[in-house]
């Protein structure tokens, strides 16, 4: 079966700094794959490259077999490659219901309709509401986004992504800034999403990574150091050195 | 044919120098604080009126008024910066535009109230109003003076930025404000000083402009458009870019008025829109 997403020989430099050096990997459909690495390793940059927000200097990106390397970001989204942001990137003065409805309408092609009232798109609105319910933020969905608690905003990040009906979901530290007690719950919600959905997530908390990932990629200095199952990664000397070791001291 | 070409280039370059003095401060404030200061030319106008008043009311010699114009514009600008502008460094472009255009409107009304709405008459010393004949070509002395002053200012500016501690801090603040703060540089203070310096140069430009383009109460708005063109083409925060854009605009404007007077204004805007579409961050912009 073709991989849900594959990258081959991705390269990117910022000036003399190599942020992506010959990165290749494949994500089979339905996999929960974690990307770990120290701060500044180039993890966010890799997501930017995969989604087309930054153009790679070289390499090839395939989505379900289709070459998307030169495709603009919004078209990749429509083909099912969707991301969330490490730093909240939301619509401050819209409420969550409006924000998610907006995303649903864009997907369904209803956003071009300027002559009907929004309320006539009942199906889209109900779908948006269901997504908010599934992420347990429906009870605040009539409040402006900027008034929500930080953890609720993190969930809204994911809700927006889900509204596009992704095939591959790239989560950039979904639990960043969320208290440790709550991040487990957040990942339980994420883990409960459809098994058809391929999930690639960046996370610093190794407990969470080992619990939810079926495979782990380790990125150091813009290069893939290693990939393997949680057990293999936990046992690897080099990972201990560059990553776990440092975390252990700190 | 050669004669007009040299004359046009000479006048255009001198005009460009004037635009450079008027624009360079705005370019730096945009680059450093991301602050769109549409009131910049109001400080230029202030300098102009200081010169006019000192000459006509108090009989000062023209040259002696120039430093005063510089200082007056710098002082007033820094007061406004401290009490009003700096609260808006984090606001959107639109709020900044509106706030500062409000200041422009007020400055225009104050100028009209104080000095009337006519062109301000100034008598400059005769040695500076003449022209010299070189190779069958007339060169205005005043324009040469303008070019010398502007080039001197540029040399001092570039030198100060490159070789002094203050300059290094300014560059750091323009490059990356967060990092500069992290290094313990007092960005607020640096910025206030830079703002004053830039406005002072505009004040100097305003004084020097009287002889070339005249001065009236609407100066703050009329020249704003030219300054905006220079800044957006030059790329914000770039002194070299501002210089080049000012020369480009000065020469094109004079050439347009000389060769195709009917459509010259039209051509300037076509040039601006075309260049901006080609390079929205300006010809020499980095971001």
């Amino acid at each position, binding site marked *: 079966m073709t991989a849900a997403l594959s990258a081959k020989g991705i390269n990117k430099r910022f000036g003399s700094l190599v942020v992506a050096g010959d990165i290749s990997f494949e994500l089979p459909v339905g996999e929960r794959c974690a990307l770990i690495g120290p701060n500044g390793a180039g993890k966010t940059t890799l997501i930017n490259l995969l*989604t087309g927000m930054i153009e790679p200097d070289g390499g090839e990106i395939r989505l379900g077999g289709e070459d998307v390397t030169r495709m603009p*970001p*919004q078209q990749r*989204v429509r083909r099912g490659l*969707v991301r969330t942001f490490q730093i909240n*990137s939301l*619509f401050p*003065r*819209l409420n969550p*219901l*409006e*924000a998610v409805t*907006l995303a649903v*309408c*864009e997907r369904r092609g209803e*956003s*071009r*309709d*300027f*002559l*009907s*009232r*929004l*309320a006539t*798109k009942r199906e*889209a609105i109900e779908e948006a509401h269901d997504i908010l319910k599934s992420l347990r933020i429906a*009870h*605040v*969905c*009539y409040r402006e986004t900027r008034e929500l608690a930080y953890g609720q905003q993190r969930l809204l990040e994911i809700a*927006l992504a889900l*509204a596009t009906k992704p095939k591959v979901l790239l989560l950039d530290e979904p639990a960043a800034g969320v208290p440790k007690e709550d991040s487990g719950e957040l990942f339980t919600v994420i883990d409960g999403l459809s098994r058809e959905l391929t999930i690639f997530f960046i996370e610093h908390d190794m407990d969470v990574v080992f619990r939810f990932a079926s495979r782990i990629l380790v990125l150091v200095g813009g290069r893939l150091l290693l990939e393997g199952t949680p057990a293999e990664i936990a046992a690897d000397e080099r990972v201990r050195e560059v990553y776990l070791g440092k975390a252990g001291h700190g | 044919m050669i004669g007009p070409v040299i004359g046009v280039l000479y006048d255009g370059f001198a005009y460009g120098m004037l635009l450079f003095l008027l624009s360079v401060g705005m370019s730096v404030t945009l680059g450093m604080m991301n602050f769109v200061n549409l009131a910049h030319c109001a400080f230029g106008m202030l300098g102009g009126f200081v010169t006019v008043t000192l000459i006509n009311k108090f009989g000062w010699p023209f040259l002696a008024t120039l430093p005063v114009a510089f200082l007056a514009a710098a002082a007033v600008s820094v007061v406004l910066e401290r009490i*009003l502008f700096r609260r808006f460094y984090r606001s959107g*472009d639109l*709020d900044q535009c*509106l*706030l500062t255009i*409000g200041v422009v*409107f*007020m400055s*225009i*009304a*104050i100028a*009209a*109230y104080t000095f009337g709405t006519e062109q301000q008459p100034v008598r400059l010393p005769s040695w500076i109003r003449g022209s010299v004949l070189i190779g069958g070509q007339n060169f205005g002395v005043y324009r040469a003076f303008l070019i010398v002053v502007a080039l001197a200012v540029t040399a001092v500016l570039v030198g100060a930025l490159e070789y002094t501690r203050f300059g290094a801090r300014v560059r750091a603040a323009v490059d990356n404000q967060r990092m500069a703060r992290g290094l313990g540089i007092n960005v607020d203070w640096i910025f206030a000083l830079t703002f004053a310096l830039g406005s002072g140069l505009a004040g100097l430009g305003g004084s020097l402009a009287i002889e070339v383009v005249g001065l009236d*109460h609407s100066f703050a708005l009329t020249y704003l*458009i030219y300054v905006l*063109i220079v*800044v*957006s083409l030059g790329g*914000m925060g770039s002194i070299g870019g501002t210089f080049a854009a000012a020369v480009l605009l000065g020469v094109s404007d004079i050439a347009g008025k000389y060769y195709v007077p*009917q*459509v010259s*204004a*039209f051509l300037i*805007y076509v040039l601006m*829109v075309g260049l*901006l*579409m080609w390079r*929205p961050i300006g010809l020499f912009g980095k971001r």
Partner: protein
Amino acid sequence: MSLATPADIGPTEFLAARARWRPVEIVFWLAAITPYFIAADYLQLAGQILITGLFALSLDLILGYAGIVSLGHAAFFGLGAYATGIASKHGWGEPLTGLLIGGLVAGVVGFGASFIVARFRGLALIMITLGLDQIVAEAANSMGWLTGGADGLQGVKTWPILGLFRFDLYGVTAYWYALIVTFLFFLLVRRMVNSPFGLSLQGIRENSTRMLAIGARNHAHVRTVFTIAAFIAGVAGALLTETTETVSLETLSFQRSADVLVMLILGGVGQLYGGLVGALIYMVARDQFSDINPQYWYFWIGLLLVAVVVFLPNGIVGGVKKLGGLLGRRGT
């Protein structure tokens, strides 16, 4: 709105309720017809205010909803004004089709410009819109054979509306005509901002990068809204031509672009009524102070602008809404 909790109202009903007509809106439009009964001397002014209000409304559509800052919106107002005027001068003075002519010419040019506008933002966009307006203005200035140049377009005659209602000296017909046209376009704009499209525009205003990350068609949306706004601005310009029977270069000027922006900011950006309220206050004030030197008038406008930016970030309409909200909360 803040009272509703998710328990007592479904999501669709919640969104439907937000778009419903409020009593204060009905009061507003009823108030718009009172000049006819109580201020007959001011009907001329009232007509002008409505036309300018419509123009400001079209700017609100792009600025307040899609977040596109334009310093050159007068280009479309002036294009509409000239198109209708030129048609009338050459023998076609029928007012309703005249509006259509003005709107279409402005809309077609706006559609062309929208491809440029969609690609830029920030200072570059402000300068490009300003430049495009200046290009149109300079073109009109140099094409004196068509536009009358600096003397303005002479010889415009508007026929009676539907062959029945003649434009009179007191501006009665003009007032009703402007009121009805403005109201109809207001209905259109109100529907638009409450549509799925309007929601997408607000998304672009709030965070255009995030819009791309959810697969939104930002460029297409911007092109659509810019074209529609240009069309409406053109209709406003056409209204001015038909009711005053002259067109001057001032309709295209930077001054007009800046004035309409000031009015909109005063009234409140993205509040739907901001343009109308701003036009009302601005023009009534200017009328009241018309005997003082117009240069001095700018002092107060400038002060007002600074005050609004500092104290009333959402303009007068926003301020009133907030006040209403505070009072309402205290009442319950």
